[in-house]
């Protein structure tokens, strides 16, 4: 409310949109700030928020990665010398870090294609489904809206040594069990995240499918294209901008992996087979008190994501509309 009352006088000064000409002073200000300068005032809290919570910490993270930084009592003046690429050298020479990036690679190779294919197929099927719509929507979206921490509990139970999954698989069950098996730990996490996030990506595709012209399907049908053919030649090109977005967002999600290795595999076990860079950032930065090293891991991670995103855009192509 205080914003409302404070800003009201300013609102009164704003010239009505219809009033043209005659206002010399208004014209000059209009050129400097636009027709409705109050827009800037309304957006100010958000802009301050973005600067304080995103822009500044981003700069700070990069700065930190080039300096020797450690925690100190608040207010204490400490020299934090510039160390050039030392932090990066330390990070790249650390086998744990290299391994964690490899793990994310495995994760992305499984998770991203699975997510794109499943969410597109399910979305186009859901788009045409008539019956049980509510049930189906709830079914596919519920994992997405539930806390990872909550569903991790069930997965631990399901995939434990004598858990239901192994009971069903019988002799086919891997030994040692999924989450404590160094080969299966990461794929199991990738499967978990795919299941967990799919609802969101289905939602994105459902929205994109509304923009695919019905006439294109009719044209394809008159040309003798079957269901499968028109899926490949109408649906897939039609939702390309959404695919670019899904690729990008699922890659970012993968790079941000933390909760799952922390809880599902007890902190990146077995023996670092499922550590993620973010988990290492937490361990190195906060547990072991070297935020500079953690910041360097973060910078490398973002560079990696940018490279992957760039390649994806080149491959998936499509101009975003």
């Amino acid at each position, binding site marked *: 409310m205080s914003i409302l009352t404070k800003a009201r006088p300013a609102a009164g000064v704003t010239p009505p949109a219809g009033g043209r000409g005659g206002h010399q002073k208004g014209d000059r200000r209009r050129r400097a700030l636009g027709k409705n300068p*109050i*827009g800037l005032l309304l957006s100010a809290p958000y802009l301050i928020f973005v600067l304080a919570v995103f822009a500044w910490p*981003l700069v700070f993270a990069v700065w930190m990665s080039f300096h020797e930084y450690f925690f100190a009592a608040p207010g204490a003046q400490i020299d934090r010398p510039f160390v050039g690429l030392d932090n990066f050298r330390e990070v790249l020479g650390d086998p744990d870090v290299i391994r964690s990036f490899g793990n994310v690679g495995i994760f992305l190779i499984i998770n991203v294609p699975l997510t794109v294919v499943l969410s597109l197929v399910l979305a186009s099927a859901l788009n045409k489904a008539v019956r049980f719509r509510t049930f189906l929507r709830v079914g596919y979206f519920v994992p997405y*809206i539930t*806390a990872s921490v909550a569903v991790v509990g069930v997965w631990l139970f399901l995939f434990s040594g004598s858990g239901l999954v192994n009971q069903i698989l019988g002799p086919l069950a891997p030994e040692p069990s999924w989450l404590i098996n160094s080969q299966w730990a990461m794929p199991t996490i990738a499967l978990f995240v795919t299941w967990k996030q799919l609802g969101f990506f289905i939602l994105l595709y459902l929205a994109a499918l509304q923009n695919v012209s019905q006439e294109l399907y009719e044209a394809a049908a008159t040309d003798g294209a079957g269901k499968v053919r028109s899926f490949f030649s109408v649906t897939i090109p039609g939702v390309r901008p959404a695919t670019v977005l899904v690729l990008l967002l699922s890659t*970012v999600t993968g790079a941000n992996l933390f909760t799952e290795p922390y809880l599902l595999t007890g902190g990146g076990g077995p023996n670092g087979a499922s550590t993620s860079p973010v988990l290492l950032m937490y361990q190195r930065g906060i547990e072991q008190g070297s935020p500079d090293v953690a910041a360097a891991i973060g910078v490398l991670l973002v560079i990696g994501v940018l490279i992957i995103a760039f390649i994806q855009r080149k491959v998936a192509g499509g101009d975003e509309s």
Partner: protein
Amino acid sequence: MSPRKTRIEGGQLDRGQHILRGIVLFLGALVFLFPFYYMIIGSLQKSPDPTVAGAFPNPANLTLDNYTAINSRVDLVQGLVNSGIFTGGVIIGTVVFGVLVGYALAQLQWRGRGVTFALALLVQVVPFQLLMIPLYVLIARDYGLADNYLGMILPFAINSTAVIIFRQYFLQVPRELFDAARIDGAGELVLLWKIALPLVRPALLTVILLTFIGPWNEFLWPFLITKEASMQPLAVSLANYISTVAASAANPFGAVLAGACVLAGPAVLLFILFQKHFVATNIGSGVKG
């Protein structure tokens, strides 16, 4: 449903495919929902029964003890209250400031509008994890906001997705509506309050639901910033229970799953009640009426 028969007539082929698609979708949804069903069953078992038979409720093995067990280790009510304050703060910040920006982006012309919109899009792909360390240094160390609700809320205070949604909704409101009111001499905030807000009420609900699941389910940030058990949201205290004390409980899975049900419950319930609002609602009728 015999495939040979359906091949004869186009109409029947379509129907066969419809049914097949329906069955596949239905089974898929069951697979997706199964862990939730299993979560409830597991939380009610006296002793964990991981066999196939254990997936069906067995009256002899049912109990509410797990809920009391988890409650004696993790203060569920306090956890829910903390989660609620955290989530509520984020929702209030997002709705109040998000409406203001969304309106300014869609209906007003001002210098910096393009940059602001680009920022709102850009912010969504900045990995929070890169910001985690500097934010921790700034908020927990420099501002001393560790174990503090404000420190918890701050990094999430305005949801950028919500800003985009509000903008999208405000774009659909015809500009003439506002121009007419402006000619009548209404100020911008009056316009926003009296005309724009009522028209985007459906967006409000979508935004609240969308924003709710973020902080309610968030683990990493509150985990970093709260060390005191009495300040931890439920997701954090449950995670701590899973990673440390679970091994010492009599029925660790039962207790963990009971806690999981309590954490998942509110989000799932809200979603089921308002699931229609998870898609963009047409506000055309609102404009016409």
